[in-house]
């Protein structure tokens, strides 16, 4: 279990890089199993590559997304409502995985 320190999370990419990768990858794999793989890949590569996780306190994490996520996705035909649903689920999975990786679940 990672020894989570909120202050160290301020420099998360230096202090908690493996854990962050783990959380994102676990979320990705679960999404990939449950939803359209092409869409999940597009979200992963074209939206989440500009995302940033923040620690909110009380064991809660928040993933901040770039502006206009739907507009960032190319190469995949998907209705916006469907896209938003899958993206929202993906973000929830990441936030949940962050809780797991850092020992809050």
């Amino acid at each position, binding site marked *: *279990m*990672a*020894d989570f320190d909120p202050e160290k999370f301020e420099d998360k*990419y*230096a202090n908690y*890089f*493996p*854990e*962050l*990768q*783990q959380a*994102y*990858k*676990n*979320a*990705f*794999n*679960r999404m*990939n*199993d449950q939803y359209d*793989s*092409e869409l999940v*890949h*597009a979200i*992963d*590569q*074209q939206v*989440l*590559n*500009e*995302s*940033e996780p923040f620690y909110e306190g009380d064991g809660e994490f928040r993933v901040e997304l770039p502006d206009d996520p739907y507009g960032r996705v*190319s*190469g*995949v035909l998907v209705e916006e409502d469907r896209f938003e649903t899958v993206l929202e689920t993906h973000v929830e999975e990441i936030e949940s995985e962050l809780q*797991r*990786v*850092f*020992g809050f*679940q």
Partner: protein
Amino acid sequence: MSTETQNDGDDLEDRVTNFLRRNFPQIQMHGGSAAIQDIDRETGEVSIALGGACSGCGISPMTIQAIKSRMVKEIPEVEKVNASTGMDGGEEEMDGMSPSFPGETVDDDGGEADEGPEAPF
């Protein structure tokens, strides 16, 4: 006789390459690659393209963010980093659809806690 005007640029390129190699060995360890596409020495803007296994892998978003965040801190001349997996304009790298790395044993389907600060990537 002096034709050394490129030394500064070469040095910066070397440092960027070494930075990637030193801090992100997992890119190559897992069959990925990180190529320097462009270095603008005047603006301090560096463009990096992740390829190979990186483009179909669920950890590349965090890798990209980490490269962006850390390179500007650790290499003073670098002001901004653009990094992508080359998927922005299409899906030419989509043949790497398998999100898992060969030989990796990470539990990824909701199993027990996988929290290991020494995770092997």
